[in-house]
């Protein structure tokens, strides 16, 4: 599975406005755009930055979408998620970027530039595709969202997802979605995504995980007990990440005072 070929897609005017870029990825006509996160779309790649190479997305087997309507959660590292989203767009899905991190002063814990560049680069291909308004959603996540250690003076932009970041199972099912597929390579989904899947399961929406490396599809079994839901709820409240006042996640880790503060 590859990204749309440049030679067959009509050339579009380069997107030079960050908000226009968001309009392409989250058009008002799509019902799923209400869930798209605009945080990353407030940035544009530096004018003098090197152009990003198109990343072809490949998997060991075809994504098992079968018959009926599926919703997809793409939980792949960095730009691979965007490449996968564009590949799914070719198959009639509406990619919904849920990247909820920001940039700031200091070394970033989660790299933002590649994501911004890939969203910018992929906009042309996406614009060329005639995705129907009622297309099923493919929610895009970065599986590296919680990876890394935030040291003093770094910009801690690790992030997470909450159940509120996705449509409810009721909303998905009323749009005809019958099943959910998580495309993820490295083992079981993280606890934040797991809590979303668990709530969907409780509402009657089953999910499976597709591993693009092996081509295997495994049904996701999860604990839907009240205790599991409650403990996940607590971990959502006390997540310890830095929320940005202007939206999204990201904040500078303060540098501890060098002085002892005692008597001289």
């Amino acid at each position, binding site marked *: 599975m590859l990204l749309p070929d440049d030679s067959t897609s009509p050339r579009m005017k380069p997107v030079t*406005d960050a*908000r*226009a870029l968001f*309009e392409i990825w989250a058009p*008002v006509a799509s019902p799923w755009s*209400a*869930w798209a*996160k*605009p*945080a990353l779309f*407030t940035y544009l790649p530096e004018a003098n930055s090197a152009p990003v190479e198109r990343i072809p997305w490949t998997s060991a087997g075809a994504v098992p979408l079968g018959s009926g309507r599926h919703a997809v959660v793409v939980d792949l590292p960095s730009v691979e998620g965007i490449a996968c989203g564009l590949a799914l767009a070719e198959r009639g899905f509406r990619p919904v970027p849920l990247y909820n991190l920001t940039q700031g002063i200091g070394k970033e814990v989660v790299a933002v530039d590649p994501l911004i560049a890939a969203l910018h680069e992929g906009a042309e291909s996406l614009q060329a595709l005639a995705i129907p308004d009622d297309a099923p959603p493919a929610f895009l996540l970065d599986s590296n969202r919680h990876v890394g250690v935030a040291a003093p003076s770094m910009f801690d932009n690790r992030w997470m997802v909450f*159940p*509120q*970041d*996705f*449509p*409810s199972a*009721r*909303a998905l099912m*009323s749009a005809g979605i019958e099943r959910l597929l998580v495309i993820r390579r490295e083992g079981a989904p993280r606890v934040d995504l797991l809590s979303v899947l668990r*709530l969907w399961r409780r509402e009657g929406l089953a999910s499976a995980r597709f591993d693009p490396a092996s081509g295997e599809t495994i049904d996701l079994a999860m604990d839907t007990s009240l205790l599991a839901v409650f403990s996940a*709820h607590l971990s959502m*409240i006390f997540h310890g990440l830095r*929320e940005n*006042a*202007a*939206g*999204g996640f990201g904040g500078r880790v303060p540098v501890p005072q060098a002085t002892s503060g005692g008597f001289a």
Partner: protein
Amino acid sequence: MSEPEVFALIASLVVGFIGWGWLATRGAMVDRRLWSTPDGRMRPGGGFGCLATIFAWFSIGAVLFYVLLNFAASDVKPDAKYVVLYLLMGYAFAAVNTIALRLYGWKVPDMFERRNRAAHTLFYTATLASVCAYAGANIGDGPGFYVVIYCAALAHLGLYTLVVVHAALNRTVYRILVDRDRGIAFRAGCMFVAIGAILGRAVAGNWTGFDAATGDFFRLGWPAVLFVIADTVVARVALSREIDGNLWVDRFTGVVYLLAAVGYIFMLGAPV
């Protein structure tokens, strides 16, 4: 004004200013940065970040002004300094209430970043519930501002306890924050206002001592529990598979809660 009163004034000013200023600024920043379109318009659902806060801010002022100028202690009503003090304390309580709403699962991003209208409804009504609870604490004569703080804290403690119990017994939080069901948000919000008004009435009246105030709070405020029980039953009976499936039933039920609370307060008569 005595030194403790000046301290209370400054503390309220700081808490209120930081709380509401932060909320309005954040709303405006998120609107400007995230939700405006290339041609300067707002995307659907955007543009309410700052307005929502300002609307809530004026609503608080209107309710508290009315109560302070008509039902507050006899030495407060004619004195602008004290009216300002108790008004600012009300804003501080409402700001703290915004943080306490996290107990129910609501967070600021639900309103500004996720543009969830149901979360907006919950915010307005919960703020109104807090204002009702605080306004009751200002009714009647008392020896000083500390009795207002005690009574308001008591009413808010009762309100938060019932809010947490309601969240534990129901899936209402999920229906509001994830399903974005506006009908359920209105119904739950009206329930909070009803509880806030009843608990506010329970702490209203002339001050006769801490024991008497606490006793009155439980004696007059217990019907607030009935609203949680009633809403738990309603949430199960009126359960709809659709989002906003029972919009008008939920709205009607919310109005019934408010009327029931008003009826109870009228039944109790003027506080003594």
